[in-house]
């Protein structure tokens, strides 16, 4: 009797695990993330122009050491600047193909590998936005991102008209769960770093961040009468970041976490110039939206939405 109860528990646990990672979902969230990350990748590349500034060896690029790495080898053979230019062109082609969904799987792989190589090539101009983009691309590599809303799909329909009547194939949810975990980890880690910083504990962090001359968007600083807002904002940011990982576990609190997140990142965008960081973070929130709901968005795109069987309740 005892043994059968034990067995039942284990199999229930395995079933929960299976549903959590391998439940079949519509491919639309993956497609939307591909489009958004491709667009933001392109935007990031535009920010990294002119090419002579960040990609060639006589630009703002670290002095190459003598090591045995790929970069050193390329430089030794006189291919340094050419490699930088080729990397830019490859990434541009990869992100453009991702955005339109042409050879989607390959495009995402190129975007990911190029982004990793870019960190090794020249990490100087790269902010957390690049790190988030790379992390999301790593997860997207394992998904079929071109099943809908893509040139691939359109070409498939042209080649095989019968494909137009077929619903897009479903996919296991695990790459999406990986993105959710990664984003939650980013906020938790960032929140804890902040908690360990004295300025966040004494409520002055936002005051100093908003006054930094290298970031602030407007010439005028916050008047002393509004200091309370900066102090309140400091604590709200701190607790929201630490709480994000826990709030996304339940559908109701998840909504609050995401709305606060959008407001927080829009606030950052309006007050500080942080490159594409705010947009990359907001784009990553697509991973937290019910995949069936995402499949109903953009109905004009002529993709058949998939009827929900059991929408995932928790992350």
């Amino acid at each position, binding site marked *: 009797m005892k043994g059968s109860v034990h067995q039942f528990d284990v199999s229930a646990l395995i079933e929960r695990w299976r549903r959590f990672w391998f439940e079949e979902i519509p491919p639309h969230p993956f497609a939307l993330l591909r489009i958004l990350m491709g667009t933001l990748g392109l935007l990031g590349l535009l920010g990294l122009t002119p090419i002579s500034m960040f990609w060639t060896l006589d630009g703002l690029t670290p002095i190459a050491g003598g090591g045995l790495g790929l970069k050193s080898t390329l430089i030794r053979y006189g291919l340094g600047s050419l490699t930088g230019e080729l990397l830019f062109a490859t990434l541009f082609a990869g992100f453009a193909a991702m955005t339109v969904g042409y050879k989607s799987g390959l495009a995402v792989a190129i975007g990911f590998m190029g982004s990793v190589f870019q960190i090794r090539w020249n990490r*100087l101009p790269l902010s957390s936005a690049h790190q988030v983009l790379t992390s999301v691309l790593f997860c997207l590599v394992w998904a079929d991102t071109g099943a809908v809303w893509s040139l691939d799909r359109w070409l498939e329909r042209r080649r095989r008209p019968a494909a137009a009547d077929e619903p897009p194939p479903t996919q296991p949810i695990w790459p999406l769960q990986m993105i959710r975990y990664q984003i939650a980890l980013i906020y938790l880690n960032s929140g804890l770093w902040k908690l360990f*910083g004295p300025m966040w504990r004494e409520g002055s962090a936002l005051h100093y961040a908003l006054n930094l001359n290298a970031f602030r968007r407007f010439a005028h600083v916050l008047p*002393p009468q509004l200091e309370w807002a900066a102090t309140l904002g400091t604590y709200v940011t701190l607790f929201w970041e630490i709480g994000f990982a826990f709030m996304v576990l339940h559908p109701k609190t998840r909504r609050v976490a995401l709305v606060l997140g959008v407001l927080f990142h829009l606030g950052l965008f309006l007050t500080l110039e942080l490159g594409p960081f705010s947009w990359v973070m907001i784009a990553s929130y697509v991973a937290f939206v019910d995949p069936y709901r995402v499949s109903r968005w953009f109905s004009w795109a002529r993709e058949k939405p998939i009827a929900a069987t059991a929408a995932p309740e928790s992350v």
Partner: protein
Amino acid sequence: MSKSQIVISLLLTAHLAAITLAAIPAPDPAFKVEPIQHPTSNDIAATMTPLVDPLAIRIKSVEQVLWKLTLPIRPLVASYTNITGLQQYWAMFSRPPSSEQYFRVRYYVASPSRRTWTATELVHPTHRHDRVRLLRSFRDSYEDKAFDIAFSSFVTARDHGKPREIDPATRPEQLPDDLAPIARYYGRRFRETQLLSDERIIRTEVWHGTAPIPPPGEQLSPVALDARDTVLQRYYAGPIEDRARDATKTPYHGAVQEADITWVLEYYEEQ
């Protein structure tokens, strides 16, 4: 579960464990968490600080225990995150500077027919402080980030995480090369756009500037603001040339004051 699902499950578990462990930072004496002076001037801060202070100290101690427990597998985790580019360092704005940050580059120019002269240009922030940052500042943010990373790498490599006595006779070859890209890139740009054919740069210096940000609830006096503004406006007009007197060199890590901006010579190269 199918065989493929079991394999994927194992790989997923390893991946998630690796990125979670990578997110736990190494203990660093420079980032010690200690009780702080509880502010009394601000009601919200006066209420919240005593609450979050002990919480931070407790969580930090748990983090340190986790770090020690996972020490044996750290090299494996580091290899994985390095290869995949999935480093988990998300300390954005955890310790925002309490001063405004500037960089200027000074060039010493020599020619066979004229005395050596200097030119100094402000290179960071890329954007003027008195204008709203719009479309162009998106691109500028990447250039500004390059200064941020280059300088923090330079200071870490030079000081090994501890403030130390810096020898004024330090030679360029004794300095880390993290600020070299800045000296060389702007030096090249200056040479190509400003110098005559017989002129050449014989020395390039990178100066780091700081100016105070008043603490919460306080403001800079209009006089101090005007003085800083005047200094910055001179730089905005283009490289400031000094041809009147023989170029005198500041000893390494020497400081000079312009209004409330303190400039420190952090890096130099001689050609």
